[in-house]
C-alpha cells in the first residue's frame, strides 16, 4: 500500500507541483491549505509523514507543530518543515518542537525526496 504524505501549504501552486511530483514518486497525497484544515484531516487520515509550511492562515505552522508534537496520538508522525523563513528561525523551531527535519524554499526536488526517504 502506498505511503501517505500530508502536504500543508497555503500556496495553491506549490501544493499542485508537490502533489504532481510526489504522486509520480508513488506516494498518496493529502493536501491542506491552512492549519485548521490540516488538524481536522490529521486524525481522520493518519498520514505517514507531514510536509508543513510555517506561515499559514487561521492556525499557523508553529501552532500546528506544537499540537502534533504534544498529542500522544500524532507525535510519532515525522514532520518536515517547508518554509521560506530564514535558517535561524527554522532551526529554533526545529529544536523547540522536536521536529524531524526542514527544507528551505526554494527547494531542490532531489533534496526533498532525499529528506522524505530518511523517514518513509
Amino acid at each position: 500500500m502506498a505511503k501517505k504524505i500530508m502536504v500543508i501549504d497555503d500556496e495553491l501552486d506549490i501544493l499542485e507541483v508537490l502533489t504532481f511530483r510526489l504522486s509520480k514518486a508513488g506516494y498518496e497525497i493529502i493536501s491542506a491549505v491552512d492549519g485548521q484544515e490540516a488538524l481536522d484531516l490529521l486524525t481522520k487520515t493518519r498520514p505517514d509523514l507531514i510536509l508543513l509550511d510555517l506561515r499559514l492562515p487561521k492556525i499557523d505552522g508553529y501552532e500546528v507543530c506544537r499540537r502534533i508534537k504534544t498529542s500522544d496520538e500524532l507525535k510519532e508522525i515525522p514532520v518536515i518543515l517547508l518554509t521560506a523563513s530564514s535558517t535561524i528561525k527554522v532551526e529554533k523551531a526545529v529544536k523547540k518542537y522536536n521536529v524531524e527535519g526542514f527544507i528551505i524554499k526554494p527547494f531542490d526536488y532531489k533534496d526533498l525526496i532525499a529528506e522524505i526517504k530518511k523517514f518513509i
Partner: protein
Amino acid sequence: MKIAKKISLSFLVTAIIIVSVVGPALYVIFSNILKDSIFAHLSTTAQSRRNHIETLLREYEHAGKMLALSTSFKNVFNENLDYDQRMEAALNKIETVLDTHMDFFEILIFDEKGSVLITNEPRNVTTDENRLATLKTEEKDAYLVDLHVLEPSGHIGMCIIAPIYIENERKGFICFRIKADEIYSILTDKTGLGKTGEIYLVNRDGYMISPSRFLEDTFKNTKVDTTSTRKYFEDVREFGDTKHPHIPFIHADYRGKKVLGVHDHVSSMAWGLFAKIDEEEVLRPLRSVAYLLTTMAVVVSFVAWLLGVLIGRVIAKPIRRLQKCTEMIGKGDLDYKCDVSIKDEIGQLSLAFNKMTKDLKRTTTSIETLNKEIDVRKKTAMALSESRAQLKGLLDGSPDLIAQIDKNIKVVWANKAALDLYPDVIGNFCYKAYGDGSDGPCKGCPCIRAIKSGNIETDIVCKPRVKGAEGVTYWEDIGVPIKDEKGNVTGVIDIARNITLRRKAQMELERAKKQIEYILGATKTGLDIIDKDYNVVYVDPEWEKIYGDPKGRKCYEYFMGLEVICEGCGIKKAFETKEIVVSEEKLPKEGNRPVQVTTIPFQDEKGNWMAAEINVDISERKNAEQEIKKAIDIKSDFISIVSHELRTPLTAIREGINILSDESTGVLTDMQKNFIKLTQRNVERLSRLINDVLSFQKLEADKVVFKMLKNDINKVAEEVTKTMEQLALNKGVKLEVSVGMNLPEFRFDRDKIMQVVTNIVDNAIKCVDKGDVLITTSRDGDQNVRVSVRDNGKGIRKRDIPKLFHTFEQIEKGKDRITGGTGLGLAICKDIIEKHGGRIWVESKLNKGSEFIFVLPIR
C-alpha cells in the same frame, strides 16, 4: 636722636615683635584645623570607595561561582554527549549570561591544559587566563584575576576563573571576562574631591592600574613611587590583610605636586587605594587668612608707630617751641612770641622770655620792610602779563573753539579758531552765530547749565551748518563756569571740539556690530571669546539672553554647568596646538541642542592667547543623520522581507519548469527543451541572487552566529573538490586539490569556510576555458593556515582588483560578463574571512591567470 623719634621707634619695635609672633601662630592653628578636616574627609571617602569596590568584587566572585555550576557549561566536558550539540548548548548559555550580566563581555571555557574549548569571541584563543588558572593549585571555588589588558579586544578588565567539576574531578575552567568600567566609575567619581582630588589604584608592583585625572593611558605605564606608596607597602608588610592605620600625611605625588593624601588597602586583590588632593587647593582658603593677618600686622604696626609719634609730640612739642622761640629771637625776629598756653614749667619759662623780647622790640623800627613790598609787586605785574600772552598763544593755537561767555550768554571773547569760523561772534548771543542757527538758546546747552549749576557740564551737539564742512557735524561742547572770589558764577568758558570723524567711526562700528549680531541670531550661531584661564570674555547678545551675564564666569561652568574643564576641551587643544579645532558639543542648558564648535586661537593686542568659538547649530544635520540611520534599518528589514516573499513564487516556478524539463508531462521538442533550459538557468540565477542578498544583509547586520568548532581544513578542500568536479568537467576544466601535510585541526565555522572555498572555485571555473584550477592548503608561519585557489584563466586587470571584494562589482562588463554571478559572492567571502580574524586577497596577471588566497589564524 630726638626724643619724639625715640619714643615712636620703641612703639614700632614692640608692635612688630608682638605681631610677628601672633600672626604666624594663628596661621599655623588655622591651617592645622583645615588639614585635619580634609584628612578626615579623605579617609572616609577612601574607605567608602574601598568598601564599594570590595562589595563589587565579592558579587563578581559569587556570580562566577554560581555560573560555573550550570549544566550547559559542565556538559562541555561531557564526552558522552554529541560534540556539536553540547557546544551549541554552551554557546546559547553564554549568550544568555552575557545578556543578564551587563558587566561580563566575554566567556571562555578551557580544559586543564589551558586550551580553549568554546568562547563567544572567535578571535580569542591565546589568553593569559588559562595559563594563570592552571598555575593556581589551591582548591578554590572561584577567584579573580587582577586587572590586565584583555586581548584581543584591548579592553582593560579582570576575570573570574572558576573550576568546573564533574563528579569531584576537576575537568577545566570557565573564565568570565569583565570590563573594568564599573570599578573605574567608582574610582573616578569626583564627588567630594574638589578640582584636584582623585582616587587611584596601585598594584603590588607599584604601577597605577586605574585612570588618572591628570595623565592619559596610565594603565601599568606609570610607576608610582611616592612617600605614600612606600608607606603603604611598609604597612602591607607590617599589617598584612589586617586593618591598616591609614595615617594621612602631606607628600609629593606622582606628578611631584604637594598633596594631602591617605592610602587604603583592597586586601583581596592586593591593591593600594590612594586618595589625595592638591595641598594648593586645600590651602587656598588659608591664603585669604594670610592676607588678612598680614594686613592686620601692617595696620597694627602703623597704628603703634602713629601712637608713638603722637605721644612723642605731646611730650616734645613745648620743649621744641621754646627752643625755636629762642632761636628766632636770637636771629633778630623780635615780633616772635613764645607760646605760653601750657601752664607747666616750660610755660612759665616762655612767659619770662616773651617779656624780655617785648622790651627789646620797642626800640627797633624798620624801613627795610617797605622796600621789600614794592619789589614784590613789580615782579607780580610782570609775571601776570607774561602768562596772559602765553595763555592767548595757547588758546589761539588750539583747534577747539574756545570762547568766554557772560551770564547773559553773550560772547565776551573768542579764540582764533572760533573767530575764523564766526568772525562776528564777539558781543553777540552765543547761539546766534555759534549754535545750531535757531532763534533761541540751544537745547541742552552746557553753558547755560554750567551757569546754573556752577559745575562743568558737557553735551554732544549736532550742528547742521558749519562753514567749510560737508553735511552734519558733531561737536563735544564743554561749559566751564567762571567764579568770583565769593564763589558766584560770573560767566562761562565754552570749549567746543569737532568730533564728527570719531562719532561717524563709532556709529559705523556700532552698525557693523549690530549686523553681525543679527546674522548670528538669525542663523542660531553663537559667538564667544574665552581667555587662556577659561574666563568668558565675550558672548553675543542672543546667547547672553539665555545664559545670563558671563562676567567672572568660567566657560565650562557658564555653558556646561561643570565644575572642571570639559573632557576633550577644544579650547585647551587649540591653545596647545595654536591651530583651529573643530568639535561637536551638546548644550545641556538648551535641551542638549547639538552644535559644531570651531575654536580659533588668536593673540590679543597685548599678546595674550585667547580663543574665539563659533557655535553653529547642527540640530537639522543631527536629525538628518538619525533619519538616515532609520532609513538604513528600514532598508535592511525591507530587503529581508522582500527576499523571503520572492522565495515562495520562485519555488512554484522552479518546480513547474523542472516537471516540464523531466518530460514527466510529455515529450518535448528540441526547441521547447532549449527554452526550458534557458528559463531554468535564469530561475537558478534568481534564486542564487536572493540567497546572496539575504546572507550578505545578515552578515552586514552582524546577525550571524559563527560556530567556531575544531575542524580539518583539508577535509573542507577535498569536499569542495568532490562537489565541484562534475561542474568543472562539463566545462572541460581540470579541478585538482593538493593538501598540506601535518596541518593541525583548528577552530573555524566549517559551513561558512566551505561556502567561501566553493564560491572562489566556482568563479575560477567560470573564468577558465579548458584549463586547470588548483586548490592548495598549506601552513603559513606558526600562526596561520593558507588556502589558495589558482587558475590559468583570463586574469584580472590591475585596476579592477581593488573593486573585486566590493558589493555588486563585476569585472568585464559587456559581452564577456561572467554569467550567473550576483556580484555579492566575494564581498560575502571577505566578510566571513575577516570575522574569523583572517585575510583574503588576490594576485593576478592578465591572460596568465589569478590566484585567490586566504589565511586563517590557528586557534
